[in-house]
Each structure stands twice: as structure tokens, then as C-alpha cells.
């Protein structure tokens, strides 16, 4: 023993004995992670497990990033982000959705929606406050609420009605501690979009029971059926809503890590305060690239959206044909088919499909217990690969045929 420290004699181990943060330590790792480790080591895998565009950032945006680097734009920006970018974002939201946000006091550039979500939750929640989260939902929602000291309260949505968020179910989940509702539409992993009428009913509920609305609209441009509604534009919503968005999906800029939030001034002021002390600012280069994206990449965006839509139609039809029942996802780039006919749990399904047919999908339970019975398939993949993936999945499903029969009987009963 080299140290006279008394702790060393009291404990067999040498490490610290005080427990780490219990909220974080008791939060399980993402269900996606374990799966990723297996898939990454295999060859000839067609991956439908990817939550990002298969497009590379359009060249004109990359070129703007290179230019910015060459010119030495390598410094911090203001905490809120470049004003010229915030001005463009607010103009963009006004033009697209009629949203009314002041670029100076109601807009903040964040390191992706991920940071924006963290800021919104930290600012809105006091310890023990409840946040209603429709499920299945993006993997980060629940842990983020917990990390911010809140208590997530899930509200189930189902495939039968296209994962519509029923206002009655939300109403049933409301308690005196309800502080906010966190909604992603279009949604990852379901591809579901919420209608304007449903959202309006939700706003009425928020007004009546006085809770905040946190709206993750990162997939707004990837809406294929109907029109996206920016939650902040609904009557009565603006003063209690944080709109989160960014450049990752529409402009294929996931790795740039640049997003934004829009909210009324009192909220934005506090979110900027947290951002100021924890993040300082988003990457300067990425902000300049984002300006280029808004200024001149609209044609590319429209082309990409049209292409996702074509693949969506092809893939969803294909899934239904091979026996993986799938409602029509109206946004994002995910299909979330039911795997009931395989007779397997979503984890078994995903693991066996990967091992036996080398197709990677994400088990539905990674998105909450109500995602069980489904798998998430991303169709942000080249058409020939989708075709091949469907063939492999069809073959896999036929092998599960005995199970399929058993279930067919059970259903008829």
C-alpha cells in the first residue's frame, strides 16, 4: 500500500465509492446501440437501420463550408448564432408557415435539435414535473426528460389509426404536475404526422391545463401527404410553444450539427442562458453552410423530397406485399411495419433478420414498450437496395411460416 489514505484500508477497491448520478446511471443504453455493434461487424449487410439521409450534403452547401474554412471563419459566433442566419430562418418560417418570430429575441441557433430539446426541457422543467410524451417516440425523448429532472409520462399511439395522437388519451394522462407535452411530427420512428385539427385540440388542452408544448419539427419538409403545420402558428399556441428544427434532414446535413429553436422571448432568453454557459455557440462553419442551404439549396431539397416519396411508395407497398402490414407513413423516411405475422418479438425479429438475411432494421421496442411488435425500416436507401432488402425480408418471413399460421388462427379466433 503506497498511500496512507485511510479510505484505502477501508475499501477493497481503489476507485471512488460515492455513487455517480443515479438518474443517469439507471438510464439504460439505447436499444439501438447494442444492435449497431453487431451489424457493424458484418459484411454484405443492407442497412435499413440508418436514421439519416443517404444523400451527401448538396455540393453547393459543402462548397460554402469549404469557402468559409478557407476564409478563416473559425471563430465563435454570438451566443445566439449569426444574426444573418436567424433572420433567414425566421423569414423562411414566415414564408412557409406564416410563423411570426423575431430573429433577435425569439430565435436561437443550436447544435442540432438534440441540444434544442435539452435546452427546452431544462428551462421548462422543475424537478418532478411531468412531461407527456406520445409513444413510440424518438429514443432520446424519455432520457432527455429524465436528465432534465422531469418525469416522462407516455401516451400510447397505435398503428391501426396511423399513430394518431388521441386528445382523450392525452387528457387522461394530465395531472397537476403536468408541465409540458413533447411531440415529434412527422415522427421518428413511425413516420406519422398529426393533423392540424388534432394539434389544435392539443393546444386547447395545453391552454386549459396550462402546460408547455415542445414541438420537434426536424422532419417538417419530409411531409408527403397533406401539409405540415408549424405548431407555433396555431392560435393560442405561440406563447407556450418551443419549435425545434434544424438542417439535418431536409438538407442532408446531419454531421454538421446545426439546428435552431424558436420560442417567445421569455423562454428564448432562458434557453439562450443555458446555451451560453454550456455550449457557447454552434459551429461557425456549419452556420455559414446553413445560410447557403436556406439561400440556394431549395431545388436540391425538392428533388430529395420527391425521391424519398417515390421510395416510400415503393417500399411500403413492398412491405405489405411480403406480409409485413404497414399503414401509410406520411412523413420522415421511416416505415414502421407490424411484424405480428412472424410470431417473433421485435428484438428476435431484428436479430434473426440480421443474422440470417443480413438486413439491419431497428427493433420497435427501442422506441418504447408500445413500439413492440414493430420494426423501424428507413427507406433513405437506394431503390435497388430496397428491392433486394424486400426480397430478403420476404424470404425470412416465409421461413417463419409455421409461426405465421399459428398467429393467423389466433387472430381469427
Amino acid at each position, binding site marked *: 500500500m503506497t498511500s496512507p489514505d485511510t479510505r484505502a484500508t477501508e475499501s477493497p477497491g481503489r476507485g471512488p465509492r460515492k455513487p455517480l448520478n443515479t438518474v443517469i446511471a439507471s438510464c439504460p443504453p439505447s436499444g439501438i446501440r447494442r444492435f449497431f455493434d453487431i451489424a457493424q461487424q458484418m459484411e454484405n449487410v443492407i442497412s435499413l437501420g*440508418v436514421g439519416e439521409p443517404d444523400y*451527401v450534403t448538396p455540393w453547393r452547401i459543402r462548397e460554402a463550408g469549404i469557402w468559409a474554412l478557407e476564409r478563416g471563419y473559425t471563430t465563435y459566433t454570438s451566443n445566439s448564432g449569426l444574426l444573418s442566419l436567424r433572420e433567414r430562418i425566421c423569414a423562411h418560417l414566415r414564408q412557409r408557415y406564416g410563423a411570426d418570430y423575431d430573429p433577435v429575441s425569439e430565435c436561437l441557433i443550436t447544435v442540432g435539435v438534440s441540444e434544442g430539446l435539452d435546452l427546452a426541457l431544462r428551462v421548462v422543467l422543475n424537478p418532478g414535473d411531468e412531461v407527456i410524451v406520445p409513444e413510440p417516440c*424518438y429514443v432520446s425523448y424519455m432520457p432527455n426528460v429524465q436528465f432534465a429532472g422531469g418525469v416522462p409520462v407516455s401516451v400510447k399511439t397505435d398503428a391501426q389509426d396511423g399513430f394518431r395522437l388521441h386528445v382523450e388519451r392525452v387528457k387522461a394522462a394530465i395531472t397537476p404536475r403536468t408541465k409540458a407535452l413533447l411531440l415529434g411530427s412527422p415522427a421518428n420512428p413511425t413516420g406519422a404526422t398529426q393533423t392540424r385539427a388534432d394539434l389544435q385540440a392539443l393546444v386547447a388542452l395545453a391552454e386549459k391545463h396550462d402546460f408547455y408544448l415542445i414541438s420537434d419539427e426536424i422532419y417538417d419538409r419530409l411531409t408527403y401527404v397533406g401539409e405540415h403545420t408549424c405548431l407555433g402558428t396555431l392560435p393560442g399556441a405561440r406563447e407556450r410553444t418551443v419549435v425545434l428544427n434544424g438542417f439535418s434532414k431536409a438538407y442532408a446535413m446531419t454531421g454538421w450539427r446545426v439546428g435552431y429553436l424558436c420560442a417567445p422571448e421569455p423562454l428564448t432568453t432562458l434557453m439562450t442562458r443555458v446555451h451560453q454557459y454550456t455550449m457557447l455557440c454552434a459551429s461557425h462553419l456549419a452556420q455559414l453552410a446553413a445560410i447557403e442551404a436556406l439561400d440556394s439549396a431549395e431545388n436540391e431539397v425538392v428533388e430529395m423530397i420527391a425521391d424519398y416519396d*417515390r421510395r416510400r411508395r*415503393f417500399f411500403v407497398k413492398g412491405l405489405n406485399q411480403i406480409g409485413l402490414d404497414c399503414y401509410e407513413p406520411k412523413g420522415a423516411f421511416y416505415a414502421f411495419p407490424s411484424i405480428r405475422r412472424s410470431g417473433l418479438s421485435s428484438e428476435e425479429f431484428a436479430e434473426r433478420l440480421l443474422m440470417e438475411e443480413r438486413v439491419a432494421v431497428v427493433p420497435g421496442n427501442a422506441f418504447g414498450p408500445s413500439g413492440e411488435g414493430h420494426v423501424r425500416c428507413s427507406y433513405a436507401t437506394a431503390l435497388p437496395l430496397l428491392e433486394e432488402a424486400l426480397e430478403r425480408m420476404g424470404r425470412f418471413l416465409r421461413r417463419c411460416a409455421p409461426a405465421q399460421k399459428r398467429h393467423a388462427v389466433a387472430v381469427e379466433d
Partner: protein
Amino acid sequence: MREILKILERDARASTEQIATLTDLSEAEVRRQIREWEECGIIRRYKTVVDWEKYGEEKVFAFIDVNVTPERGVGFDDVAERIYRFPEVHSVHLVSGTQDLRCVVEGRTMKEVADFVAQKLATIDRVTSTSTHFLLKKYKDDGEIFADGEGDHRLMVTP
């Protein structure tokens, strides 16, 4: 409907059934529309982009700028026609600037292309001068990049 053209422009072999699925139109509708476009010449023909060099076949291409004295009544049209009738001529454009016609000519050897220019092009009535630029390397042609793609840098599974 424009959607159908975009699909065919990228993949001329896309079947009616595939196109119907991709566009959410009925197969009959797609078939009728395509036939109509074929008949009225909006769809001119279906072609395949071939990388002949990769196949092992050496071809020589040259861009040839041609100066022409225009003629009252026809302008450059008659000369352009005399040029584009040759099968070795891939394209002919009337352009602004110091040259009048810009052509792309194909041959098996440089000599063959040079001969074509000397014997056929330069001798056309009212052609006052030509300037030949041999193509050294094709990077992008007709929207197609002739190089390996950038690859998929995404991780296998991400949230």
C-alpha cells in the same frame, strides 16, 4: 405526371408497374401517358449511358468550333444541317461569342477526326474557320459523373 419523366430520365428501363408504384398512379394511366409522350416527341428515345473507355474501347472525341458566314434567309441553319447529318457528329449547337457552331465529333483515332475536319467540315461552303479541341478526359457528361461515387459514410444503425 412530370414525375414520370424524371424517373425515366434517370432509368429508361423502369417498368410501367414500377413507375406506377413510385408515383401512385395506375399502370394504365402511366402507360397511356408514356405512349402519348412518345408519339408527340416529348420522349424522344430511350438510351443507355455507356462508359466505353471502361469497356476497353478507345474513342476519340473533339470539340470543334466552327465559324460560318451566315446567309440571308437561312442564317446558320443550312450549314448546321450539312454538319449534323454526318453520323460521326454527336452534337451541334449554335452558340454566342466569337464562334458560331460548336460541335462534338467522334472518331476511332485522332487522325480520323482530323481528316474529318479537314475533308468534310472545313470545306463546307461559308465555313470560314475551324478550331479543334481534342477531349482528354471525361469528368461529367450529360449530368452523369464519370468517377466512382463518394461512398456511404453512414454508420450501420443510427437513431
